[in-house]
């Protein structure tokens, strides 16, 4: 594995194998976010307060984590539709299964991470080992998980331990939102991951699976791990969503399918695999959440938000695809 970079360098399709600093996608997402933030703040009556900051981070964090998970799979040239089912399942488990004890938030976290990882392991096994198409396999997992969520809790309701609903949604020392700290931790974990053999291998598989295999990348294992990590991220996203809404809903994750992929696209991650970044997707998620807020504050009717989400997803992908086509044209 350590010789991976040397072996793959001459192969034509593997230019994306090394995590080069591709600031473009992330930078564009950040610029859009900044513009939206300016509009949003201008329409706010008061100055930027800690409460407002908490609000922005708390609302964006669940989607940001879910999108981060999806990115791991997209990088390896796959799609993971199980995000919707796993988020819903985590949400209903947290309001029904963990009780009220002092350790409840921690056991809850362990539970949803394990459930997510298990769903991811099933996905990874179906896709990496049995060779099923990722969309088909993960469609089945998401249907099963949504069904299980309905079995756990068949109507919205329930409550969560105060630690989750209050402390996690508050600020550290009254200044930095806890959600911002968690977002930073995820971002740091990603920056470490993409410099490890595993991270490099994920890019390599996405760019050209065949060359990666020839270069000695354990394709199946890396893909399996990517799906497992992604599943745990959906579990964590469900955890933060439950802290935010402080209640259970068996359909809580349904909206996440389109939103997470829109976030991935805005963040500049290529749906063809091998290019992109988790941080881009997280900024993309923040952008989408802020877009909803701005549209709402501008008095746009709520159904337009759905239309806007769909259009944003398609537009982001089209721009990305055209950009890639132009880049490919420039290289050859």
């Amino acid at each position, binding site marked *: 594995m350590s010789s991976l970079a040397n072996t793959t360098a001459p192969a034509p*399709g593997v230019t994306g194998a090394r995590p080069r600093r591709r600031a473009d996608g992330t930078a564009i997402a950040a610029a859009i976010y900044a513009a939206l933030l300016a509009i949003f703040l201008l329409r706010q009556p008061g100055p930027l307060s800690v409460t407002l900051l908490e609000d922005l981070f708390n609302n964006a964090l669940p989607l940001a984590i879910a999108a981060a998970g999806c990115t791991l799979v997209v990088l*390896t*040239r*796959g*799609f993971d*539709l199980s995000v919707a089912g796993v988020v819903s399942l985590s949400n209903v488990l947290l309001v029904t299964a963990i009780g009220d004890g002092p350790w409840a938030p921690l056991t809850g976290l362990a539970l949803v991470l394990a459930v997510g990882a298990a769903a991811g392991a099933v996905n990874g096994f*179906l*896709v*990496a080992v*049995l*060779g*099923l*198409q*990722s*969309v*088909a*396999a993960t*469609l*089945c*997992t*998401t*249907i*099963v998980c*949504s*069904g*299980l*969520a*309905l*079995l756990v809790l*068949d109507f919205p309701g329930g409550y969560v331990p105060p630690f989750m609903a209050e402390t996690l949604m508050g600020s550290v020392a009254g200044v930095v939102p806890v959600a911002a700290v968690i977002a930073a931790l995820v971002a740091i974990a990603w920056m470490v991951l993409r410099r490890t053999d595993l991270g490099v291998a994920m890019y390599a*598989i996405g760019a*050209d*699976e*065949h060359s990666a295999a020839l270069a000695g990348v354990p*394709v199946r294992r890396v*893909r399996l791990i990517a799906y497992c990590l992604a599943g745990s991220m959906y579990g964590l996203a469900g955890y933060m969503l439950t802290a935010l809404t402080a209640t259970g809903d*068996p359909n809580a994750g349904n909206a996440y*399918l*389109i939103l997470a*992929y*829109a976030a991935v*696209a805005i963040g500049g991650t290529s*749906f*063809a*695999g091998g290019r992109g970044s988790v941080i881009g997707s997280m900024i993309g998620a923040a952008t989408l959440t802020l877009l909803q807020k701005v549209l709402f504050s501008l008095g746009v009717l709520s*159904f*337009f938000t*759905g*239309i806007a*989400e*769909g*259009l944003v*997803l*398609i537009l982001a*992908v*089209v721009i990305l*695809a055209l950009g890639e*086509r132009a880049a*490919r044209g420039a290289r*050859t």
Partner: protein
Amino acid sequence: MSRIGSDGGARAPGEAASIEPPVAVRGIGPHAPPRTDRERHLPVALCAMTIVLILASRWISPNFGSWDQVIAILTLSSFVLVVAFGQQMVMLVGGLDLSVASVMTLGGILMFGWVGGSPEALLWGIPAVLAVTAAVGALNGLAIALVGIPPFVVTLASGIIVYSAALGVTQGAPRGTASEALATLYRSSILGLPPVVYLLVALVALALVLQRRTVFGRRLYAIGTSREAAHIAGVPVRRTTIACYAISGGAAGAAGILMVGFSGGATLSMGQAYLVPSVAAAVIGGTSILGGRGDFLGAAAGAVLLTTFSTIVAALGVAEGWRMVTYGAVILAALLLLNTEFPGRRTAGRPSPR
């Protein structure tokens, strides 16, 4: 699916040379692609399972297993069957249409709102609704075939857009009149069967002719088997793909129209329950999600089997959650069975050049 992005001229030169000829030839020749034994036996097996299920249901309730119930199941299966036709056409070229639920709702709402109760209005109303829904499908196809966006992304987005637009236009409560003429499809009887049953038989026959006896049909299998080989053999890959998505949109719209005839109304959630069964029916009926395998006889038998299954499950009073879990497991099992039959064709990543 992952192959869509690497369509046509987007590929690096020389890559096209690495195509396995024996697979690629399937469907391009002058004859319809030969059916394997499995493809021939599958519809029979599915029908046998349906009959066994119906007979077995006599134990659950004395009302079950009667001739009336058989007719009721055939009538109820009309919606899944029609949506599954479109879904299968898309799957044959290696795609997937997640927008069918929303487009079906759109078809129902337009039918309910535009056409209303007058029988004369049906003459222009039905073609108009079909044209609108097919246009939505064609837009999906355009984005997929011309821009190269993955089908699941495009149809997910268009599904949300169509649904939100329907929500906005109707303010949540579609207004209109039910068409009496449409209702006769379900309420009247010709030779002991509701007219819609004859419509379904006609659809199955037409679909089989389209898939197995026309140039267009052969192109579907050629594209689904190998997009590159089909392109080299002169198949208009993009145009055919767009046509498939247009058919899927139109079929979903037709299911919406039928639903208005059946229920006498339209709601915003009328299509929701039909996305998963449409994929399930096609897959159980032997359609490969990678494309190039399966025909509508199998998918139609799959649709009837699924409807029988859900009718019995509903009668047993089993929770909705279990039904979804079973659906997921059934699709997965069918996928795995198909996969073991063609282990060489995998697209977990890029198809292996060897």
